[in-house]
């Protein structure tokens, strides 16, 4: 907890919190107003549109921010020599990892909640909005934090695995590219080439769950009928057979597994 507090303060001081919050708020506001403009006569609320566009934005941005925050967490401190001193104190290594995780999640959570919240509030003030979409909106913010947590955990795993900071940065970018861009492209390619022969719905479901960003996408685009209607994925969630609980479970597993692996690796690491 003390380490979490220190990470938070560190983040405040080097403007990470400010920068990410401002970035997310600016993008969210832009999307909210530009994206909502043409919906006037359509039967979907502006907030629903915003959820769709914001969750697409989140898939790109939040993992990137999370990885940037976290890739340095272990290897960077080891390299600078601050880790040796820290571990000479009465703290266990898993406490260090969890403390940092809590701190970084706090930074990211704050940035997401405030950044997106501002956009939501602005829409609320600009015109009347149905309360139903708000639930989906809050769920979107919460799941964005969860997605952030996933990538912070992956970042720690990378950080505990590699030997120097440069490598950690490279691997982190690779992880981002893989999950955010390449995985879906490859999946699409396989689906097209396969003509539904071997890749059945069940296999596809499993493949979607294996990528946290896909789980996040499904979770948000199918969250409410209003939203999914606009996103053009009506019934996809139902047909995909993946309930929100399963999706959240998959994301949670994506937090726990890399975090546990990072802790285990770090415990054996030479400082």
């Amino acid at each position, binding site marked *: 907890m003390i380490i979490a507090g220190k990470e938070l303060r560190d983040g405040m001081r080097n403007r990470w919190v400010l920068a990410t919050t401002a970035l997310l708020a600016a993008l969210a506001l832009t999307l909210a107003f530009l994206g909502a403009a043409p919906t006037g006569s359509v039967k979907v609320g502006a907030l629903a549109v915003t959820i769709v566009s914001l969750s697409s934005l989140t898939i790109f941005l939040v993992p990137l921010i999370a990885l940037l925050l976290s890739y340095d967490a272990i290897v960077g401190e080891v390299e600078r020599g601050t880790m040796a*001193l820290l571990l000479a104190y*009465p703290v*266990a290594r898993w406490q260090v990892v969890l403390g940092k995780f809590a701190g970084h999640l706090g930074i990211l959570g704050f940035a997401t909640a405030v950044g997106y919240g501002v956009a939501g509030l602005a829409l609320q003030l600009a015109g009347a909005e149905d309360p139903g979409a708000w639930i989906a909106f809050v769920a979107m913010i919460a799941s964005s934090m969860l997605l952030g947590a996933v990538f912070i955990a992956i970042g720690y795993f990378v950080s505990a695995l590699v030997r120097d900071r440069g490598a950690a940065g490279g691997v982190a970018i690779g992880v981002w590219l893989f999950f955010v861009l390449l995985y879906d492209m490859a999946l699409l390619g396989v689906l097209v080439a396969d003509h539904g022969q071997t890749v059945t719905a069940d296999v596809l479901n499993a493949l979607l769950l294996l990528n946290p960003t896909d789980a996040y996408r499904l979770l948000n685009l199918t969250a409410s009928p209003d939203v999914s209607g606009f996103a053009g994925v009506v019934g996809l969630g139902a047909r995909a057979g993946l309930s929100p609980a399963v999706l959240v479970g998959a994301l949670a597993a994506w937090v726990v597994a890399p975090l546990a692996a990072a802790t285990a690796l770090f415990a054996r690491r030479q400082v």
Partner: protein
Amino acid sequence: MTGETVVMRGVARRYGRNEAVRDLDLTLSGGECVGLVGHNGAGKTTLIKMMLGLARPSSGSVLVLGEDPAAGAAARARRELGYLPENVALHPSMTGAETLAFYARLKRQPVARNAALLERVGIAAAAHRRVGAYSKGMRQRLGLAQALLGEPRVLLLDEPTSGLDPALRQSFYEIIRDLRRGGAMVLLSSHALAELEGQVDRVVVMNQGRKVADGSIADLRALAAIQPRIRLRLPRAPRAVANGPDAWAGWSSISEGVLELSCEESEVASALRGLPGAAEDIEIIRPSLDELYAAFQKGAP
């Protein structure tokens, strides 16, 4: 408080094929100030890291305050341990006071005592400046302050005085003397024996991972068996020495009119008594600490 604080038995540590520390036995007691001396890469830092539990010995056992420092249960022991790493690295964006408060909380120490500690190491005036703007000496002082948190019984200082100016060094040693009086065991590592003269009561010399000497500086002198030399100048007839009377047997001429004799410590007095009145500039040269150190590094004794 005395008694064994650090006990190492048959400790070895390998990194791949490189043996950083081999087969080392070492016992350090409370109230002792021990100098750990060796080249860069002689295994000093590895030894300290094993005492801290940051590195596990490849073989052998390490006990610090009665516990295995690498085990999870060593939290109690670590609370009574202070460590100053070589080239202390601190978080540059925090101020001095914040840094110390962070470490005090980790050690479960009241933060209220920090102001006095900062005063003691002489950086109270800079407490609210960012550590990134500190000079090397100030960072080192802050590093010492964090090592002193909670009045540790074991203090491990890795090259604490490197990069400090002489005045700073003196105040550094003053603080260490105070601690020792309080019964703490202080281990200072250094790559120069001369730097530790008068500060430590025991020296452990390391060479290529082995302990090559262990004892007080006087013990080391005796062990190294470097003989003291008597040097003097004769105003006339230097050539007389070579083929002169027996009185000068054993003396060698090292330059125009200057003679030198190597002898045992016990023979110094009688050699001096036998000198003629004409001898000038009589000097007794004992091996300097650097020579002593060099002798051990060569593996002489």
